[in-house]
């Protein structure tokens, strides 16, 4: 196996490298991917030049993510959601000893009390800040790097921090299994719901333009911008929920009690 692995690896490597001299040079703005080919302008040029006209969103990445390739992103969210459900399906076990109802120290071998006080207090201070920042990242994705995934991960991390600092049941007390499973579904429901709304208004799926009819005080272009914010929120919901779900299941062997 060792030799086979080595040979396979070397062979693949040589194959991959054999094409490298044919590549456009690194950083070349005229490479086919960046600059297009002859009479085929590259789509990325279109994105850079026209995004603002189309959507009024200055962060091109966000616009491409949530609008031009919003269909991709919806399934990306589905992937995350599927992973959460998958981990639940694989690991979650309902049998086994019942979890102690009171939170216990995470680590009794070290001088527990002091640590708990220090960590607990620090966390109490920073967790709201983290969560606030997460919301900012979600909301400000139009203008700065950020968006639903990033914000969702940060928000999920804040709950994981609770679990780390205190213990899992404390975190579950704030964000119970029933809730995070529901929130995961709701997130995609929001995303797909925006798409379906467009279908209901007789446009193609995810064609946000038409939503200006039901959004107050918007024109078609701003409708795109606002809808993008909406779907980003949906993404953030799902990502938050699933990040925490993954942690909760992995850290407790699916029993959702005190960790290892």
């Amino acid at each position: 196996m060792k030799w086979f692995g080595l040979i396979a690896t070397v062979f693949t490597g040589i194959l991959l490298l054999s094409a490298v001299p044919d590549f456009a040079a690194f950083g070349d703005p005229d490479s086919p991917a960046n600059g297009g080919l002859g009479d085929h302008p590259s789509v990325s040029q279109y994105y850079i030049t026209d995004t603002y006209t189309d959507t009024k969103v200055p962060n091109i990445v966000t616009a491409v993510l949530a609008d031009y390739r919003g269909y991709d992103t919806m399934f990306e969210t589905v992937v995350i959601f599927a992973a959460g459900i998958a981990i639940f399906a694989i690991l979650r076990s309902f049998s086994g000893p019942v979890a102690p109802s009171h939170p216990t120290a995470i680590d009794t071998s070290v001088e527990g009390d002091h640590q708990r006080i220090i960590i607990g207090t620090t966390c109490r201070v920073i967790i709201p800040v983290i969560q606030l920042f997460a919301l900012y990242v979600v909301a400000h994705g139009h203008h700065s790097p950020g968006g639903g995934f990033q914000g969702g991960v940060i928000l999920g991390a804040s709950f994981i921090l609770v679990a780390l600092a205190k213990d899992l049941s404390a975190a579950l007390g704030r964000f119970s299994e029933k809730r995070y499973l529901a929130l995961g579904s709701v997130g995609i429901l929001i995303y797909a719901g925006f798409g379906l709304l467009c279908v209901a208004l007789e446009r193609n799926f995810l064609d946000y333009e038409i939503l200006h009819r039901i959004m107050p005080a918007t024109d078609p272009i701003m409708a795109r911008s606002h809808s993008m914010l909406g779907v980003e929120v949906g993404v953030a919901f799902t990502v938050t929920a699933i990040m925490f779900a993954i942690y909760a299941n992995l850290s407790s062997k699916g029993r959702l009690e005190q960790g290892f």
Partner: protein
Amino acid sequence: MEFLNASVIPYFNYWIYVVLMMIGLHAMITKNNLIKKLIGMSIFQTAIILFYVSIGVKTGSTIPILEHHHDEGHAETAHAVAESGDHHAEETDHEKSDHGNNEHAIEADHGIDPDHFANPLPHVLMLTAIVVGVSTLGVALAISQSIYKDFGSLEENEILAKIKQGGPGVDV
């Protein structure tokens, strides 16, 4: 040396990606420990991300976020952006200057010079790939935890031996 100059140095990112990827692939194939396999898998996927992002690099460009002024007109916004981009380009890359001039035609048409912003598409794609990678990793960890629960080991050869024996806990 000539080979280095012609085929390696202009493409060093791609060489690195291939090397990284092969490290990952090798680990996935040959490592005995399931977690090491997963580490290999992560390296493997990260190498692909490096590759994609390398495609989108334009020398002397900035992140693909336009500067945003709510009250000003479209053309003005773009102009401001273009200026700053130009400035940046001249600082970093001399070869690019004449190139930049050629592209002014486009600038006139659309108001925004594509050369000044990194290609956004690979970033979008890789955001997706990262998410997919994380999800796969999560599921893989869950599966390996489940394997550990059943076999009490994460070493592939031990697991296979146990399966062969059909020992306790293994329903064949």
